[in-house]
């Protein structure tokens, strides 16, 4: 049985490093140990200078995203037992490294805000009208897309975002689709401007890796393709509405 495992971590200390460097740690191995726990062990026992982000430890908060052997993963949902030959851990790809495993996600957050991620309705239901009703079919249109935890793994998986940061990207477009599909929402026309834009759904070349790496089984690739269908319909309708 293995009793320790080698973990290589890409370190970056802005005050002393000009570029990131690899550093190796030996961590005691147990079958149920997560990568996040291994990082905590390193910080507590081996090297207090290591920086990383976490909060919930249960794949809910979305703050522990990192690259493990080149694949975007949640540290708390990744287990040492699946990497007996060691692991190479690096800050989430496609984002600037702030320090060690901590990245600057502000661009991602701005994109999430920009798609108007809330129900828009100028004539909201009055209280006395009672609660909203939705059929199972109406709910199924958006439910899976509402499961996103904003971890950013899909952005790290997306070469289109990596090559061009103006691309709205998987999670934001999936969230946009989530609100557009909600039967309580009336903001679709506003959001379609974002979908139709060059950096919107059409910036996607259907690589499909975003859906593969998503830890919550959101399917951003599907949301974006359905966004393209909507956008194409918009375009055809606009041809018959001159002067708009």
């Amino acid at each position, binding site marked *: 049985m293995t009793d320790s495992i080698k973990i290589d971590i890409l370190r970056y200390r*802005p005050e002393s490093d000009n570029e990131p460097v690899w550093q190796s740690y030996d961590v005691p191995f147990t079958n149920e140990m997560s990568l996040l726990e291994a990082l905590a062990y390193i910080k507590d026992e081996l090297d207090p200078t290591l920086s990383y982000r976490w909060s919930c430890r249960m794949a809910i908060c979305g703050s522990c995203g990192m690259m493990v052997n080149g694949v975007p993963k949640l540290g708390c949902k990744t287990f040492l037992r699946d990497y007996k030959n060691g692991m190479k851990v690096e800050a989430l790809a496609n984002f*600037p490294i702030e320090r060690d495993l901590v990245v600057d996600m502000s661009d991602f957050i701005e994109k999430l805000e920009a798609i108007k991620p809330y129900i828009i309705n100028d004539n909201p239901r009055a209280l006395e009208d009672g609660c909203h009703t939705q059929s199972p079919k109406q709910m199924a249109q958006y439910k899976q897309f509402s499961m996103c935890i904003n971890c950013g793994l899909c952005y790290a998986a997306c070469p289109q975002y990596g090559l061009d940061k103006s691309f709205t990207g998987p999670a934001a477009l999936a969230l946009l689709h989530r609100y557009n599909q909600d039967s309580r929402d009336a903001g679709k026309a506003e959001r379609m401007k974002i979908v139709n834009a060059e950096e919107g759904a059409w910036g996607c070349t259907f690589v499909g890796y975003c859906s593969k790496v998503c830890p919550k089984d959101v399917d951003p690739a599907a949301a974006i393709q359905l966004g393209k269908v909507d956008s194409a319909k918009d375009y055809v309708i606009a041809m018959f509405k001159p002067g708009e």
Partner: protein
Amino acid sequence: MSKRKPYERKMGATWWLKNTFHTKYIIREGSSLVIAIYSFVLLFGLFRLSQGAEAFNGWVEAMSQPGWIVFHLLSLAWTLYHSITWFSLAPKAANIWLGQKRVPDSWIVSGMYGALAVISLAGLILVLI
């Protein structure tokens, strides 16, 4: 004063070789180049046809050279690879419902293969009659 100095990693020209998923994606997309070349070859054949029987026969003759046969086999294999990967992704772009039930992905994929079979058969019949 801020001590921040964010580091941007470069993707580099070989980014698609570092991850098998990305490599497969580039192989899938690469087929479009082969299909473009194939279309030009075919168009040239049509052009020769417009110049008369002799010109066209010359083109057919050229196409039966081993090099060109290999090219056609390669295009076929690559195009099939593209089609298979594309068919398996197709359900993502479809949101089809029958009453209160979503049409299962497997139906859409089978539908695509069915359509391919019908169109290929029609093409074959056209060529043979």
